[in-house]
């Protein structure tokens, strides 16, 4: 639908896989940081006077 790839991630992580959780969280954060701010589907904030 035109959402940039890399902005949606899925992963199975069990409650005991803390290291995996940390790793996936890192990976997702880095992937999203690399993409930079979202360019699509931005809604202009309503301007309040």
């Amino acid at each position, binding site marked *: *639908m*035109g*959402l*940039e*790839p890399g902005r949606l*991630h*899925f*992963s*199975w992580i069990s409650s005991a896989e803390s290291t995996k959780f940390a790793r*996936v969280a890192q990976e997702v954060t880095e992937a999203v940081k690399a993409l930079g701010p979202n360019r*699509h*589907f*931005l*809604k202009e904030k309503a301007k309040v006077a």
Partner: protein
Amino acid sequence: MREYTDKIRQIARRLLEEGKVDRVIGFKKGSMPMMNEPCVIRRPQDADQLIWDGNCGINLANYLTGAKDKVGVVAKGCDSRNIVTHIIENKLDRDNVVVIGVPCQAMIDKRKIAAAVDGEISEVTETDDGKVVVRGNGFEKTFDRAETLQDNCAICVHRNPVICDEPVADPVPEQTDVDRYADIRAIDAMSDAERKAFFDDMFAECIRCYACRNACPLCYCPTCFVDESRPQWVGKGQDENDIRTFHFLRAYHCAGRCTDCGACERACPVGIKMRVLTRKLEKDCKELYGWEAGMSVDQRPPLDAYKPNDPDAFIK
């Protein structure tokens, strides 16, 4: 077509006479060409109002939602699949419905025809040799019927009714050599920027009239998500994000349920081709779960059930 009409009238009359149904839903001639209207017949003597031709595209399952009385309904392939979905989703009791099954020879697209001629059309006739003759103020034009079909009918692979109590004719051959997803694959192959541009263009005309939703036999929620205010899932304005949210979410709500009857596109006053959304999901359901909507009253759509072997390749 004449035989279909005669047979439908005959069946409807008999069902009403025998008291098997309280009413029959079918089509009657509209006041304008190519504008047949759904109609409800309650008395045997009114059965002769019923007709059948290439302008009976409206999905009559839409008129069955929540029916409590005995209803006879004229149904082509897609209508019958929506009736099945209705039965699965408790919108209809199988015992309350008599399906008058029409092996469908595809519907013609009034917009294609109107666009191909200049001037007001006064009469459209379909000939037995597969031609469509269009007459209007000072012109007459003949088309190959195959060229005037609705987009969804051209690629239809289930023309015969899935459930049928009163067959109108012998089944027609199904199309086996059509590619239902050529355009979907093209969109899949686009880059995200191209795809965004594609959808920007596609939704540019949307006026949020919700005709697509209202025409869809699957959209029967008492309160649609777009009308909810707590929480407000979708803004009410013409913001492009809200328009997209509406269309994408509506398509997702139809995932695994849509029969590609084409009601949404037919209803759209500005000609948005939103079937690419529902067909993308249809394609995924077929490829991932081997599922086609409305083919059996015993099975719920794949997204309504969990199986341990559901594909999960997208999960890392």
